[in-house]
Structure formats: structure tokens, C-alpha cells
């Protein structure tokens, strides 16, 4: 997070208090506030895109084709004169759904695999552990491409491909978390008290091991949106009539020599979303770690 210069405060306060207030303002996590505000804006775009736009996302106007960004068209227009800002806003729902869906698929798969590897009966644990290690040998993008080659490109395949592609990494992390909790003093104490295995797992191990999952999920949403848009960009995800951000970028590539905004703007939006998700995720991570101590 960048440290901003101490911003000026209202003139009514005394100098010493103003100084203290300025110092505390500078210490605030501004990056986080920006990220949360951006996330709220995205939520509005996803639920009620018409609240943020005046044009229709499919309104074609050949007279205004390939116009650079201006007051009338904030992000410029595409080859059919469609307003890019409107398309980006209307694309938010699909892009976020794919990101959230993929993150959910990835984290849930990882949770199942990680729990079995850490808590399951010995043979199952060994097999799952090895399986995760094998899947980890395939880079996430290639695993996703393999799944798409089998199932054919579509939004659903994209969600599962990205989710399953990223799952092995998270599974390893979750397994480590659970093992850490399993070997801790409080579990030993509970065992000594004669609590049953299930009760210990339910009441002690899972709550402690899974608390970081909230942060992992936030980080994963950002990652998933980037991965999913990579697939659309390669023409292997959602197809161009959709205004999913990766698809917008892919469609814009054909006009790269005439209309830079068609590729720069959707990419910038994806980067901003990924950064916001990372900022929120990291913040949650440090808060949770502090809470544990």
C-alpha cells in the first residue's frame, strides 16, 4: 500500500490535534478503502448495470465507430460504434460470476482434497496427497487448457477449468493449515480430555485451520478473473458476442493498430479488479493472523 502525503484536515481543530489527526489519516489503509469502494462499484455494476450507464450495451451506431475516449464515450467506441464503457459495465456480471464460480470450485475442491489428505484414514490420505502432488506438476493454465480440450469451450467449462486448475495449490495450503492445527497444544489437550475424534475435528481443528480460507477465497477471486480472462483472450472461453472482459479484449485485438482503447481499457479493468481482490485478501490475511496471536 502506498503511503500518501499527510492530507490537510479541517481548520477548526488545534494544531497539535490536527497534527495527530493528520498522522492517523496517513496511517489509514487508503489502498484498502479504494479497493473496497471499487468492489462496491463492481457489485452495483453486476446487479444493476443500468444504474451506471445511459447507452444500451448493444446499441450500434456505425457513425460513431472506433471513436477514442471522450466525454460522450468515456472509454471510446468499438468497430460497430458500441459504447465501450457500457459494454465493460454490462460485462461485469458475467466476469465476476465466472471469477466467483471458479474461485468457489477451486476452494471447495481444495478443501475436500486438503481435508482428506490431512485428516482421512492413512491409505486415503496418502493417495490424495500424491494425487494433489501430481496435479501440482501441471501449471494451472495448462491444466485448464486440457479440460477445455476435453469438454469444449463454454462459460461452464471455463469456470471448472480455472477452478480445478488452481485447486492443487490451495489443497496443499489447506492440508498444511489442518496439519498445523492438528499438531497444536489445544488438540492435544482435547485428546487428553477424551473428546471424540469427530468432535475434535469439528470443534477445534476445522475452525482454526479454515479461518484463513476467507482471505484465500478473496485472493482466489482476483486470480480466477485473470485466469478466466486469459482463456477468453485465447478464444477458448466465453465467445465475443458476450462482453465478458477477456472476450472484449480478444475482440479488440483485431483493431489494435487503430483503436488502442479497445485493448487497454478492458485490460486495465481486469488488472484493477485483480489488484482490489488482492488488497482485500491480503488485508484479511494479516487481520486473521493478528487475531490468532
Amino acid at each position, binding site marked *: 500500500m502506498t503511503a500518501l502525503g499527510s492530507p490537510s484536515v479541517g481548520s477548526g481543530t488545534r494544531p497539535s490535534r490536527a497534527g495527530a489527526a493528520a498522522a492517523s489519516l496517513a496511517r489509514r489503509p487508503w489502498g484498502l478503502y479504494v479497493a473496497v469502494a471499487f468492489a462496491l462499484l463492481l457489485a452495483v455494476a453486476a446487479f444493476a448495470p443500468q444504474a451506471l450507464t445511459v447507452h444500451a450495451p448493444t446499441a450500434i451506431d456505425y457513425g460513431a465507430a472506433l471513436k477514442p475516449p471522450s466525454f460522450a464515450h468515456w472509454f471510446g467506441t468499438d468497430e460497430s460504434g458500441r459504447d465501450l464503457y457500457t459494454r465493460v459495465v454490462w460485462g461485469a456480471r458475467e466476469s465476476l460470476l465466472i471469477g466467483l464460480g471458479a474461485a468457489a470450485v477451486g476452494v471447495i475442491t481444495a478443501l475436500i482434497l486438503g481435508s482428506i489428505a490431512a485428516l482421512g484414514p492413512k491409505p486415503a490420505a496418502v493417495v490424495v496427497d500424491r494425487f494433489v502432488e501430481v496435479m501440482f506438476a501441471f501449471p494451472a493454465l*495448462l491444466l485448464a487448457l486440457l479440460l477445455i480440450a476435453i469438454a469444449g469451450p463454454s462459460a461452464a467449462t471455463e469456470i471448472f477449468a480455472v477452478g480445478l486448475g488452481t485447486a492443487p495449490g490451495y489443497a496443499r495450503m489447506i492440508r498444511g493449515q489442518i496439519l498445523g492445527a492438528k499438531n497444536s497444544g489445544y488438540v492435544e489437550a482435547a485428546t487428553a480430555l477424551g473428546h471424540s475424534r469427530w468432535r475434535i475435528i469439528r470443534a477445534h481443528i476445522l475452525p482454526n485451520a479454515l479461518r484463513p480460507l476467507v482471505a484465500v477465497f478473496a485472493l482466489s477471486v482476483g486470480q480466477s478473473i485473470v485466469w478466466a480472462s486469459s482463456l477468453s483472450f485465447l478464444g477458448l472461453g466465453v465467445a465475443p458476442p458476450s462482453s465478458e472482459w477477456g472476450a472484449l479484449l480478444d475482440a479488440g485485438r483485431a483493431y*489494435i493498430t487503430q483503436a488502442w482503447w479497445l485493448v487497454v481499457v478492458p485490460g486495465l479493468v481486469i488488472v484493477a479488479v485483480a489488484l482490489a481482490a488482492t488488497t482485500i485478501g491480503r488485508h484479511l490475511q494479516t487481520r486473521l493472523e493478528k487475531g490468532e496471536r
Partner: protein
Amino acid sequence: MTHTSPSSETVAVSAPAPGSAPIGAEPRRPRRTRRVLLTIGRKVVSAVIVLWGAATVAFFAQLALPGDRATAILNIRAGQAQQRTPAELAQINEQYGLHRPVIVQYFDYLRGLVVGDFGSSYQQYRPVTAIIGEQLGATVTLSLTAIVFAWVLMIVWVTITAGRGPRVGALGSTVDVVAAGLPAYWLGIILLLVFGLGLRWFPIIGGTGVNGLILPALTLAIPLAGFMAQSTRAEFERALEQPFVLSARMRGMGEWGIRLRHVLRHAVIPAITLSGWALGATLSGAVIVESIFSRPGIGSVLVGAVNNQDLPVVVGIVTLVAVVYVVANLLVDIVYTIIDPRLDLS
């Protein structure tokens, strides 16, 4: 981790904790050698198991095409779904050995992999190894160039910005995080717009010479540099606090001398252990970069094969990258085991 003055040349470059070697390490030599060999043996066995698992996943992925496989292959070739005559199917079954039991096909596949046979393409009527072989050189060149670029960028950036007070440090690590998070497809497009279309320093598409290599390699190198810089920076700042830095300062060594000759050696260790991962990341990133810059290579072959559902080619390339990744990690691990003095203690 303890750090002593890196006086012993070779060890200090890559060993993580030279300070913890026990007194009287000399008489223990034979035991250490045995232990090192045992550890390496265990790692090799475990890598072989992972490779076998990867091959198994790859084999079953090819079975996962919906419907009858021979029909699927014919439909993939024709680009349309239709009913096939038994005669057509019999020919395909014969050619790909699909009429035999799955378990026989599986062992055949494994035997093929060991001798370097990845099967034949559904679409191009050629062995997968020939298709990969033609394109591999371009991708490996790209991947290795990107890793070299990443190291140069990372070392320069970290050496300049690490441990320079809160402002510069914050700027440094923010740049690391942002660079690591940049999606390759977008970064590539920006580089293309600025240096290819705007400044016209580099060819826009399909440059085959050295000039055509720079932008694609940078596209892979910048996120990689950001990633490696995060761990190097943490280690760099830790090393700057060590007594050997103080002692070097007392000997009158300049700030740059200390950073370059002493601190950097400790700081790059985590990044070296990421080498195997970096190779895998650049090889899979090549898929996107080759598509942006219209470069030949296994990445563009892979995208084409995924589009056509040409599974033997897809599986061949994916398996190859997995093998490279596993073997590179194994090598890093082995080197690490050999030079890690802590094995004396365990």
C-alpha cells in the same frame, strides 16, 4: 536462519545457513555422504512417482472424450458430427489400437512415453513428438531469455530499492506486487502498443530474429521478476541487518560494495529455489505470449490443438511441460541437498 560472513566462496553463494555447521564436521564425512545420497534417492523416487501419476492423468484425459472414441476422432478430423460406418471406425480403431482393452492401451502408452513416443495427432496424421520437436526450440529460447531478463530486472530493482528507508521500500515492494500481478496478455499488448506501434523499436508480429524476441521475453519476465523480487527483497532486508554487514562497513566497504558482494549472495537464495517453478511458469506463459506476438512455438500449437480437440497433441505438450517442471524442481532440490550443511545435524 543465521548468517555468517560469506568467506567460504562456493558455499556462501547458495547455502542457506552456513553458520550452523557443527564443530568437528570433518570426521562425520562418510555419514554425511550416505545421508545426502539417501535423501537424493528418496527425492528421485518421489519425482518418478509424480511423473508416473502425471502420465496416468494424461492417458485417462484422452479417454475422457464424450462418446465413442473412434467416432470422436473422425468427427474431430472432419470438423462436424455425423454417423460413421463400421468400416471407417474399424480403420481408426486399428490405427490407434482402440480395439484393445484399456489396460493394454495404458501400458502401451507408458512404454511409449519412456521411449519418447507421445502417439499421433488426430488431425495432422503425424507423430506428436515430430510436431512438438519442430516448435520446441522457439519456445525454449523464449522461456530461457525471459528467465535471464527476469533475473537482471529483479536484481537491479531490488539492489537499488531494498533497505532504503520506508518511502523507497514501499515504492519498491508496491512495484513488485503490481508487476507480479500483471496478466501476461495485457502486459504484452501494452508493450506491443508502446514499443512496437508507438516507438517502432521492435517488429509488431512474427519477428524471428533477436529483435522479435525482446518484447515477448519481457512480457514473461516482468511478472516473474516481480514474483522473485518479493522473496528476494525480504531476504535482502534481513541480510542487511546481519553482523557481517556491520563488519564489512567497519572495514570501510562502500554501500554498493556491501550490497553487491555480500548481501545479494544471501538474498538470491529463495529466488534460486524458485527456478524450477520459473521454468514451468514461462513455458505455460508462452501459450499466451506466442498468441499475442504471433510467434511460432509449442504454445501456439497447444492453443490450436485445444481448439480442434486434438487431444494427443494437447496431452503431449501438457505432459512435456509437467515433466520439465518436475525434473527442474528435482535438480534444484538435489543441488540444495548437496550444499545444505544442516543435513549434518538432522
